[in-house]
């Protein structure tokens, strides 16, 4: 509990500090992996980056300048990281453009895709879960069965099958692209977002159903019902509120998990986001772009996980902020 005593405040501060410190250390470690990968490559870093392309001495000098290959390894890393913190992701070898502006043009699509998927997971997943948690019967058993099966469907299979059925056969949705303007983009993103969200929807549905079933049989809920409180109030105040805690954590975690799924979905629907740029950059050996996108993805993933962690401890006072008694 966040009592107003200075001791509790100190606990909160220490807790927050610990989490944020952990976040920074993890971010630093993963950025080191992303940068150090360059040195794991066979051959010298500069031949790896140019990759047999015939380049003008000017261009090679530019790469040398970007990575500071004449300096010690750790200093190179510090310079690289410092550049990124100032928004300088280096230059693409293929597009001869700054990586930052390449990413800037494409990040919107990816963020929109993930946001729409998250919305679908929250609406449909929770909807199914709450319905089948509160109303056991044939319909809810069937929904749970379908959800269990859907959890075994990989994102790329979902994307392919949805394209076949709803875009090619029925023609309800466009097969690929993001269209023009925000409304058209939303329409183009529905199918990809659904493909990305499918497994998470199934998963959240199962989890929230189980959480609600567990709460509804709890003593305090039975007591509330026997004391004659209206069913709706009991459900809202006692069942849903308590069941929401485990569901919230998982909702957030699946959201973080969907980040790497964008690579696959953007490829299938030919969306010009970060995921498809990552795949094409790997294929075309444009390593500065690969590095930057990996870093952005991992950072987003780590930050999201930390935010969920913090949100959970705010919502559930039992996850003690510091060593206070529960």
């Amino acid at each position, binding site marked *: 509990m966040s009592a107003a005593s200075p001791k509790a405040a100190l606990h909160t501060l220490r807790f927050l500090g610990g989490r944020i410190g952990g976040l920074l250390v993890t971010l630093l470690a993963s950025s080191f992996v992303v940068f150090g990968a360059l040195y794991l490559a066979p051959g010298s870093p500069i031949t790896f980056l140019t990759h047999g392309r015939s380049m003008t001495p000017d261009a090679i000098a530019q790469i040398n300048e970007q990575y500071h290959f004449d300096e010690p390894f750790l200093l190179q890393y510090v310079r690289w990281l410092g550049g990124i913190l100032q928004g300088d992701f280096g230059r693409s070898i293929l597009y001869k453009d700054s990586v930052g502006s390449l990413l800037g043009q494409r990040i919107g699509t990816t963020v929109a895709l993930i946001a729409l998927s998250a919305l679908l997971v929250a609406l449909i997943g929770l909807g199914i879960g709450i319905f089948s948690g509160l109303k056991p019967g044939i319909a809810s058993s069937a929904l749970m069965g379908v959800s269990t099966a859907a959890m075994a469907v990989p994102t790329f*299979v979902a994307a392919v*099958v949805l394209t076949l059925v709803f875009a090619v056969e029925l023609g309800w949705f466009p097969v690929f692209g993001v269209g023009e303007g925000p409304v058209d983009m939303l329409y183009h993103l529905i199918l990809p977002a659904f493909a990305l969200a499918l497994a998470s929807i199934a998963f959240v549905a199962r989890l929230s159903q189980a959480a609600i079933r567990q709460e509804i049989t709890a003593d305090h809920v039975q007591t509330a019902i026997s004391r004659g409180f209206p069913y709706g109030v009991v459900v809202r105040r006692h069942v849903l509120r308590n069941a929401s805690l485990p569901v919230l954590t998982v909702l957030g975690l699946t959201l973080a998990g969907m980040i790497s799924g964008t*690579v696959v979905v953007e490829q299938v629907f030919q969306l010009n986001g970060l995921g498809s740029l990552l795949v094409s950059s790997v294929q075309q050996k444009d390593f500065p772009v690969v590095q930057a996108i990996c870093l952005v993805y991992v950072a987003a993933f780590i930050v999201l996980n930390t935010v969920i962690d913090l949100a959970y401890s705010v919502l559930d006072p039992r996850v003690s902020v510091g060593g206070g008694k529960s």
Partner: protein
Amino acid sequence: MTALAVVAEARRRTRRRPRGKHLSVLGWVAAVVLAVVALLAVFGPLLVTVDPNAVDLGNAFADPSAGHPLGQDASGRDLFSRLLSGARTSLVGPLLVVVVSTLLGTGLALAAVWVGGWFDTAVARVVDAVFAFPGLLLAILATSIFGTGLQAAIIALSISYTPYIARIVRGAALRERSLPYIAALRVQGLRGTAISLRHILPNIAGLIFANATLSFGFALIDLAALSFIGLGVQAPTADWGAMVGTGMAGIQQLEPQEALWASLLIVITVAAANSLGDELVKRSEARA
């Protein structure tokens, strides 16, 4: 990789107490499916009568016929023999990932539990750091460094699956270690390695095997996804994930056979691994 952690978490919450000594019907079905799939991987490539890479452009997207029981793909290659010979490429990769990450994770965790102190803390920190890196992303980074193909991806995924096993084994081994029989063994003068390997390990082997089964499904999905986007198994080698990818061309011409058959095999295998792993995890946790 988080997917795995999340699913494991949910399964813990939704677990029902397993009844009886034997597997449920669903568990048996899953075990049989996995056994059949394993046989396919071993003998499939030997059963192939038609060359899976033989191109026959005149018969692109041909319907099933006597010589081609499932029809032909966009280049007129025989779908049946491609699915059969693809079984090995599709299944050996995930198996390797599971074996390596299980050995690595178990070894690390047992050592951490027995040595304890700073070593335990250090292992936990490293494990947390690796956990923060999504598996598919690490595999993509690896293929960009070492070139496309399964080799780099398998190594990358093995590393990224290790923390999951290590966390579970660490928890279980810590519980075992606090039991009286361990103290008795120590009094008898047995060394730490002997206690860990001969007494703790056999007692938690069921739990380890159950979680390895679960991770097989996830490793299969990750590797298939990698081949699907073109960074894993390269053409013309047959692979289920890669076949869903090449089958995309047929989708838009309403010739989805290749993509659908390959997808079906992937989904069935993953579903079987998930349900069997799920049930085994519940059992080993109920026993603990």
